[in-house]
């Protein structure tokens, strides 16, 4: 067969398969991310049927997927919301960092992956999936609950933390050493502050730059700007993803709303490719040895997220049931854990096992998160009714 024909057939089969999987996932009330990862695992190295011809496309498509994931994340927030969110939640945000990053770091050190591996895995276990959390809160009709603003502001804090963390990680992975790392931190903090200030003051000019009433022109300008900024940021070692995130923040108002609507389907497409590629590049035979550690991490970080939510909600005067709901809502990990693992493994500076462990961990947490959010109330009620019975 012709080369192009094979590529098209393979690509078509992959997209169609993902479509079926995605539909199936939302049907049974879970996130499609674990299914995409499994799909990738099945067709990658050592999988069922290796796919050959689509590599050039999927490689760049998965890069674009990460850029779009972060761009749309940035579009979701206005600079004002980020600032107020930060002011409201910094205490809970710090508790979140300490409790949820340390299990990842500890396990990485235990496995002998060194300090860089520890920082990478710390990021993987730290960051909740804002995509899954928002979807689950909406599905369960909890958006009006009193603990929901608490949960959302923790997500905002995490996303901002990502903007600082990713450039640091990128710099460390590139092997720039301690001083260079500090330099990267300085540059990224400076850039983020600058962008926030610019967005607060002159966000409308950035919006005007990409805005157009014509959908085609709008899409081209938006995508063009995103890729340009991402590319430049990556050249400056600030990480392409963060560049896109900051551009998203700078675009505001109705332009942001239109941009989200225009780009959401594209993001879903390219992000799906990103997850598949991550699965493709992970060797399934590496999973069994890391499985116990993935299970341990899943258990530990479920408890630590529950504790984070409990702490954050109780400081806002929310009752016990609401505190439990807040904790359970935060359990899901997903897209950004894989983004971090992808960066780390792609650089070659950490052990390939990190990919296997991260995949397994995200597989567990992306399924466990929505389930935890759903069962937390019945489970808590059961505990409450159990207690007086135990006294008797």
């Amino acid at each position, binding site marked *: 067969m012709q080369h192009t024909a094979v590529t098209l057939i393979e690509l078509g089969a992959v997209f169609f398969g993902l479509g079926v999987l995605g539909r199936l996932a939302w049907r049974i009330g879970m996130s499609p991310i674990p299914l995409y990862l499994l799909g990738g695992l099945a067709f990658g190295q050592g999988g069922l049927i290796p796919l050959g011809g689509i590599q050039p496309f999927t490689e760049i498509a998965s890069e674009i997927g990460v850029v779009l994931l972060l761009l749309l994340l940035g579009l*979701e*927030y206005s600079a004002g*919301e*980020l600032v*107020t*969110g930060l002011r409201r939640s910094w205490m809970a945000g710090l508790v979140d960092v300490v409790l949820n990053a340390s299990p990842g770091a500890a396990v990485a050190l235990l496995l002998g992956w060194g300090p860089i591996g520890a920082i990478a895995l710390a990021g993987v276990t730290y960051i909740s999936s*804002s995509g899954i959390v*928002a979807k689950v809160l909406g599905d369960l*009709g*909890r*958006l*009006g*609950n*009193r*603990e*929901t*603003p608490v949960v*959302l*502001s923790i*997500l*905002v804090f995490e996303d901002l933390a990502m903007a600082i963390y990713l450039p640091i990680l990128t710099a460390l992975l590139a092997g720039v050493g301690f001083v260079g790392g500090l330099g990267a931190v300085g540059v990224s903090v400076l850039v983020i502050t600058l962008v926030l200030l610019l967005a607060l003051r002159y966000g409308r000019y950035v919006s005007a730059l990409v805005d157009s009433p014509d959908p085609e022109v709008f899409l081209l300008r938006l995508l063009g700007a995103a890729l340009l900024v991402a590319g430049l940021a990556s050249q400056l070692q600030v990480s392409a993803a963060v560049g896109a995130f900051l551009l998203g923040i700078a675009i505001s108002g109705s332009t942001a*709303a239109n941009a989200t609507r225009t780009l959401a389907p594209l993001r879903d497409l390219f992000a799906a490719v990103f997850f598949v590629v991550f699965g493709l590049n992970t060797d399934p035979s590496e999973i069994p040895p890391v499985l116990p550690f993935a299970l341990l991490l899943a258990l530990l970080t479920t408890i630590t997220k529950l504790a984070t939510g409990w702490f954050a909600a109780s400081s806002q005067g*929310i*009752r016990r*049931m*609401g505190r439990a*709901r807040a904790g359970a809502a935060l359990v899901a990990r997903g897209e950004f854990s894989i983004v971090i693992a992808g960066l780390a493994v792609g650089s070659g500076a950490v052990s390939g096992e990190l990919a296997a462990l991260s995949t397994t961990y995200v597989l567990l947490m992306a399924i466990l998160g929505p389930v935890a959010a759903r069962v937390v109330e019945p489970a808590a009620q059961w505990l409450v009714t159990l207690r007086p019975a135990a006294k008797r």
Partner: protein
Amino acid sequence: MDVTVTPLPGLGTQQEFTTDSGRRIGVITYRDGRMELIVSDSRDPDKICAATDLTGEETSTLANLLGAPQLVRQLSEQQREVTGVTTWQLPLPPGSPFDGRTLGETEMRTRTSVSIVAVIRDGSVLPSPRPDFVFAAGDLVVVVGTAEGLRAAGEIMENG
């Protein structure tokens, strides 16, 4: 009334107040303009027990339904100086003899010296109805008059 405004980062804004009975009632306004009415659970005030999306038209209908007593209160306020005159809102129950008949046919002014100043129907206020206005079951009829006249008017709306 204390209305609490809470930003929901990435989603929109929530505005709510707490009733005397301790329940939160509020509205979430999403970025895209969608509105949602929320009511909190009576046992767990942190939790929402009912939430429903409202279109623009539905929102204004609900506002009018809740605003009807407000209208009556406003009218009463205006007539406070006129001693002996009050404002009531009388429901036109299903099965009323005036369901489907005109305002003129009630001969309300002649029989009770009460004035019909407005009719609230399907959530909208129809001010100063004319004698050829046709009543329908479910209308709320806003009337002004003496206490005695109003009682008589209520009787007429129900039994003719």
